[in-house]
């Protein structure tokens, strides 16, 4: 096995590092930790955080990539497959490999469309062919289908229950020992954190995961698409795309917005004029046009450097990264303007003026006195932007300037689902899958962002 670091992987690791550093810093300082406590006290926020955590775990599993050695090795040298797979792919191997011929409905045992089948005796008949993997254990003429599904569901449910009980017990023991909280208090919601909401969400998530885990290897839980790929697999793979667009975009735009915004507000005069000119100009160009032009441009770049990308995954990844960059460039103007305004206010503060009077260098004033005091704006903007960016991806896919068409993304799923809606009978499951996953992520992100804003915005309450 050979590890592969895609460019977005590296950035994701960087992001994790930054978040880790932040947590480490915030732990010791009351003024940084207090707003987070406030967030943590809200049941809705904590429930959303659990959902987000689940998404993030899937996304992170999908961000560890490697190449497997090819099966037929020559002695001496090990050659690796060009196909780049992630830990998630490895976990989902049955889903990834169980490809049918074409559409099949969720939990189906036969294909969705009739086909002409040549029977053993040479006659040709028109029938729904049996799926290769969906309910394979049931034999050529599926019997006991309902019982099998029921059995698998029960198996998943029991497992979920066991795990949940184990976790709950462990938690309450720990709380009793360290926080002096009985499980009764926990249950009544008397603790500082909304444990009931957390445990409930955990239970639901566990149930979903376990039931999926029980059924998915044997059936296509969300059906298959036009070329017979498992829709559940696609939807899960799309999580990383959504998360990357939502987070990396803000990450790449952040340095620009921060420094330009703060500089404009701090230096005023011609610096302010130039920076204002830049962002007004950029802002006045309709966003989609800008993105379209930039996406076309990056295709040129990739064609010039075509030898650098040997696999579909790598190419798609570079395109994803560049898309993040472009989205970042088009969306930094808003934050920049907010930061400029806030900095203008801050420079009027006594402590900044005092520092200036003492001849402290500009750089130091900006990084010591101004930056920390505008960070709450950054945090609020970042969390609020996240869901908008995830939604924007779908629209860009429709215009034809989204992520690579070979990449799994909800936008691509929705885009192909448009055609499926015109079929009769209706092929609804890919659209439904994209909808449910996207909705869950964006809803959780929105609820969490609300809590963050309420906690950090000095104007609120």
């Amino acid at each position, binding site marked *: 096995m050979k590890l592969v670091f895609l460019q977005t992987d590296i950035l994701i690791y960087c992001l994790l590092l930054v978040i880790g550093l932040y947590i480490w810093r915030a732990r010791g300082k009351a003024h940084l930790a207090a707003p987070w406590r406030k967030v943590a006290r809200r049941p809705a926020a904590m429930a959303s955080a659990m959902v987000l955590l689940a998404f993030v775990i899937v996304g992170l599993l999908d961000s560890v990539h490697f190449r497997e050695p*090819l099966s*037929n090795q*020559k002695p001496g*040298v090990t*050659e690796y*497959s*060009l*196909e780049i797979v992630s830990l998630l792919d490895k976990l989902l191997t049955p889903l990834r490999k169980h*490809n049918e*011929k*074409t559409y099949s409905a969720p939990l189906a045992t036969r294909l969705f*469309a*009739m*086909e*002409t089948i040549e029977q053993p005796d040479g006659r*040709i*008949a*028109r029938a729904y062919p049996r799926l290769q993997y969906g309910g394979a254990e049931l034999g050529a003429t599926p019997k006991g289908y309902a019982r099998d599904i029921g059995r698998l569901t029960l198996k998943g449910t029991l497992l979920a229950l066991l795990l949940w009980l184990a976790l709950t017990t462990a938690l309450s023991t720990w709380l009793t020992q360290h926080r002096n909280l009985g499980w009764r208090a926990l249950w009544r919601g008397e603790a500082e954190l909304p444990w009931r909401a957390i445990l409930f969400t955990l239970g639901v998530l566990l149930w979903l995961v376990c039931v999926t885990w029980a059924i998915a290897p044997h059936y296509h839980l969300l059906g298959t*698409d*036009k*070329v017979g*790929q498992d829709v559940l697999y696609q939807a899960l793979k799309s999580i990383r795309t959504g998360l990357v667009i939502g987070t990396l975009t803000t990450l790449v735009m952040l340095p620009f917005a921060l420094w330009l915004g703060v500089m404009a507000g701090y230096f005023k005069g011609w610096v302010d004029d130039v920076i204002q000119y830049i962002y007004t100009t950029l802002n006045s160009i309709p966003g989609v046009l800008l993105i379209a032009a930039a996406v*076309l441009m990056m*295709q*040129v770049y*990739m*064609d010039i450097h*075509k030898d650098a*990308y*040997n*696999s*579909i995954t790598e*190419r798609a990844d570079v395109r994803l990264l560049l898309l993040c960059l472009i989205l970042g460039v088009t969306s930094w103007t808003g934050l920049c303007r907010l930061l400029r305004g806030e900095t203008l206010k801050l420079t009027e503060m006594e402590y900044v003026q005092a520092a200036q009077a003492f001849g402290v260098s500009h750089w130091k004033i900006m990084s010591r006195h101004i930056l920390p005091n505008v960070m709450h704006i950054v945090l609020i903007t970042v969390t609020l932007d996240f869901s908008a960016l995830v939604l924007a991806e779908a629209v860009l896919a429709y215009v*034809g300037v989204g992520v*690579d*068409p*070979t990449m799994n993304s909800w936008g*691509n799923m929705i*885009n*192909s689902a*448009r*055609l*499926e*809606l*015109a*079929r*009769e*009978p209706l092929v609804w499951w890919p659209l439904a899958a994209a909808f449910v996953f996207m909705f869950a992520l964006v809803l959780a992100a929105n609820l969490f962002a609300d809590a963050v804003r309420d906690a950090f915005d000095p104007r609120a309450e």
Partner: protein
Amino acid sequence: MIRLMRILAIVPVLWLPAGCGKTPWNDPYPEAERGQNILYSVFSERPKHLDPAQSYASNEVTFIGQIYEPPLQYNYLKRPYTLEPLTARELPQPRFYDKQGKQLPQDAAPAQVAMSEYEISIRPGILYQPHPAFARDAQGRLRYHDLNAAELDKINTLSDFKFTGTRELTADDYVYEIKRLAHPRLNSPIFGLMADYIIGLKEYGTLLSKQDKLLRQNNAAAYLDLNRYPLAGAEVVDRYTYRVKLKGKYPQFVYWLAMPFFAPVPWEADRFYAQPGMQAKNLLLDWYPVGTGPYLLSRNDPNKQMVLVKNPNFRGERYPAEGEADDRAQGLLADAGKTMPFVDKAVYSLEKEDIPYWNKFLQGYYDASGISSDTFDQAVKVGAQGEAALTPDLQQKDIRLVTTVATTISYMGFNMQDPVVGGLSERARKLRRAISIAVDYEEFISIFRNGRGIAAQGPIPPGIFGYVEGAAGLNHYVYDWVNHHAQRKPINEAKRLLAEAGYPNGRDAQSGKPLLLHFDTAATGPDAKSRLEWLSKQLQKIDIQLVIRATDYNRFQDKMLKGDAQLFEWGWNADYPDPENFLFLLYGPNKKAGLNGENAANYDNPEFNRLFEQMKNMDNGPARQQVIDAMLAVARRDAPWVWGYVPQSYALYHSWYFNAKPNLMANNGLKYLRVDSKLREQKRTQWNQPRLWPLLLIGLVLLLALAPAWWVWRKKLYAPARGAES
């Protein structure tokens, strides 16, 4: 509460039209058009050119084919495709001359022929459509040829001109159009091609450019009058006769005479539209055609709708009385001998996406439709013997299904200049053949085209001379003939070939590196992803790893021109029904890379080239078939393409739509069509009864949801009041 009011407010609005009669609410056409003799069709892309010298795309020909009349046309019903005179009196017979200008017999060897001459005489008495360019005043002067700015100010569309006129069609107009092919301000797509054949056309182009530059030094909009410059290769003999002279022998030229490129254009129109100020109002010959055909373009709004109406000056043409054997049974001869055109007006609406088009067709708002792969299951079920039939759903609507094999080929090419897959060495041949076996086009057709297509055995599609059916026409490098049908060779055969080519198990025998191929495509959009994935899967079957390089159309074109691609998909749509039009796609001197030809694979085999030059000038017959067979054998051995497939098109017609027979060569089919508008009206009403109850249900649910709000409202309303009292 307000939410509820809103819903209640919408409901009566929606009821309103229902109260006025049972007409459907979802009729996308104006009320006034109901029940009229109108044909409803679509266009999917805004046409770029409607000038016969410039237009080449099929979506443009849909319109100008009905307006302009070249001398010849394809017979509407007969198959194989045969030419017949349209405005000409008869099919022209070429006369051949040698270098000394001596006339040669018809069977002279092609090498001897230095010039061929086509003499075409047209029928007298054909009139142009009414058009302001022909309008004359009492003195007989052209009324609108010297417009000043003030006069033009009041004009916004063509219909703002009060007077129109007409004129008889003459041989002059045909020669004028041939000259226009070389016009420096037009970009005729066939100028390059025709300059190689028509005597003096190339020099004519140079002359015009020079004159044009002189003219425009002072005035950028100055009019270049082609009548002042004669063209050696096209001359007027008398009022109704003209001659075209070609270098050498070019038997395919008659096919060009059935295309709008050789339709007549009156010089008055060119002069009229060239006046300053016209362009800014979109008044151009490119947008407002002037023809002699059965229809004229009455509304040109490429953003929405194009409308053709009957040309009042049309001479009237008779519906053909003979056709194929089956045509009478199909009712295609019911109108034999009647005067065409039948439909008063044809409305083409812009429909960019398949889904609305299909749904509107089902609702009866379009008269005919194709079937996309996603609507296939809804429309067609394939019978026990593999024959296609409509689903009961559509049968109930009396919709008819007509299938045709297109004269189009869609293939996957290898760049023959590529060091890995290209070249004529035995190694490369085996590699290409291995891939040809692995890429299972039968599966492709079944998944992506619902079985609507035929896996190709070579570059010539069925319906074109040179195509051989059955075992004799089989590509033995990829198929075996088993049980009376072609069967793809097993995948192990492909693996064996791959090993022989030096890549056992998909690994380079020497270095052990896995074999990696690149596939270039401009495909984007919803369907592309699954198609590309399918292709990767095909090559994985023989352990080849495929890298997809998707790019935009421009980049892709650029790559093809530079010969930078490795594997790519490409297609070709026949210009005319002659094998030359397909085999030249593999002719060496017609390479794309460097030479800008149509040979996208850059295939260059001297043997094939020699045979091509021989075949090109032959007449259809056993001798030609023999040469073609030899060419196909060479090409199949070399396998420069994975031969791909020939699409089959399925068309659906409503019960009120008559005389429709797909003719892939003819582009003037509108005049043959007839609709029964009464029947259509009745069916539309029947199929489109609005259903309201779900809306009411939603309203009710919302109402229930408001109940708690009402309760809290009351509580809140009285709370402060009571507080004040106590």
